[in-house]
């Protein structure tokens, strides 16, 4: 329980803060594609006899890099490129799993999250990743904002789009792969997007957006863990339900403020 709490307390705010850029850079579909590649990453690990947790992460980062590079070089829209990669990785995973009997039982944890089985070594990795996210947010928050608002303006300011967007994409892919340990493949994009969406209803500035998203995600993580114990429900999904409840409350308060 303690390890699960620590893991969630590190992952949830990290996702919420990166989620601020996911929304402004319109990358929700990208993070969805990365999360779904976990299915294939685990399958490849199992058939190759490698640690599926490692192959899942490596495969996810490779898919992320592939999408970013292809989207930049191709004339297709980024949505189309992501859609093609999404289809390819999911189809590959289904082919692998369907061709080898007995693999299906490994995927429940991938689909729904399995934070309660987290090991001490994984916690260290999560801590390192959360630190990397914090460092990135210190160095890149303003740069990513300007890149989202107008890339030529950012370029005139001395911000090179390619290295920052690649760094963001790779870090996001790593975070998605680790976060789905907590909330599962089906809901990891929600952990990125929903706290930021709720924060938009309450924040009056960029700083407000950042801190409201982080604090809401943190509270949802702690409350979700304890409620899931009380209800006997999946921890990850319970955390997301709390996030959605926060969004509903914030939307209500924003509506009240607008009516005054």
């Amino acid at each position: 329980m303690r390890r699960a709490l620590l893991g969630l307390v590190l992952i949830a705010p990290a996702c919420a803060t990166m989620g601020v850029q996911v929304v402004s850079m319109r990358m929700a579909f990208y993070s969805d594609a990365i999360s779904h590649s976990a299915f294939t990453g685990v399958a490849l690990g199992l058939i190759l006899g490698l640690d599926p947790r490692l192959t899942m992460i490596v495969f996810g980062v490779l898919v992320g890099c592939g999408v970013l590079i292809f989207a930049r070089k191709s004339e297709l829209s980024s949505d189309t490129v992501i859609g093609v990669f999404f289809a390819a990785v999911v189809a590959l995973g289904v082919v692998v799993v369907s061709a080898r009997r007995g693999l299906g039982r490994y995927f429940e944890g991938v689909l729904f999250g399995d934070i309660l089985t987290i090991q001490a070594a994984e916690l260290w990795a999560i801590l390192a990743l959360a630190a990397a996210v914090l460092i990135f947010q210190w160095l890149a928050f303003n740069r990513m904002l300007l890149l989202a608002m107008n890339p030529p303006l950012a370029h005139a300011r001395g911000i090179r789009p390619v290295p920052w967007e690649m760094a963001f994409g790779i870090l996001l892919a790593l975070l998605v792969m680790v976060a789905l340990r907590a909330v599962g493949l089906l809901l990891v994009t929600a952990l990125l997007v929903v706290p930021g969406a709720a924060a938009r209803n309450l924040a009056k500035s960029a700083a407000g957006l950042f801190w409201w998203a982080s604090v809401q995600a943190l509270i949802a993580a702690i409350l979700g863990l304890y409620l899931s114990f009380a209800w006997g429900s999946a921890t990850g999904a319970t955390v997301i339900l709390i996030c959605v409840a926060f969004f509903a409350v914030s939307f209500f308060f924003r509506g009240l403020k607008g009516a005054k």
Partner: protein
Amino acid sequence: MSVPAIILENVSVELGGRPVLENLNAEFEPDCLTAVMGPNGAGKTTLLHAILGLVPHKGHVLFGPERREKRPRLGYVPQRLELDRGSPITVRDFLAAVQTNRPLWSGIARERDRQSLASLERMGVGGILDRPIGKISGGETQRVLLAQALLRRPEILLLDEPAAAVDVSGEALFCDILEEVQNELGITTLLVSHDLSIVSTHARNVICLNRRIICSGPVSSVMTADNLRRVFGPHSDIFNHSHSHTHPPA
């Protein structure tokens, strides 16, 4: 011409396998406003992006008397910002982000705020510092964009149809502000515009572009009916008129 601020040597740009700019050779006079005019698809924005170093190009874009390839401090005023109206990012946030890499979530230094406010007041919009940037008007947005470009004390200012989303009187007001800034600071300025009245009123020089340079030089000698037909097509012509106009209060 005194030593040029920007020199284009055989600059060509291809995008998606299609030539957008072909073999441009030009020099931009320093400390004054040069307009870049042309029809839609002429490559005006691409020219600005080549000067910014944002698009790969053949040939050379050189700067200053030393004819160096290293870019000086550039200020850029785009047409618009990509931001949805519901975003809580304020004008204060935007201007602070332009000035510093210290993350906005760690707070904005008072000195940055002071400089942001001073820059907005020079544009006549000091009262909008705390407004969400997605909720200010088109005219206010353009003045904020000019304010952010000037905050870095640029050596060269590039404006890409800055008043495209603004009405006629707003555009005239914006150009008056730009001219005041130009006269006060003496910055080399490139203004992309297809508005002939703005160009003839505010620019000293003009470059007429339609993938290639059709004509260039002082406005008084270049802006002839014949040249405009060569740039915009056979249906173009000049109608001279005089009128008095007043600007709405800021």
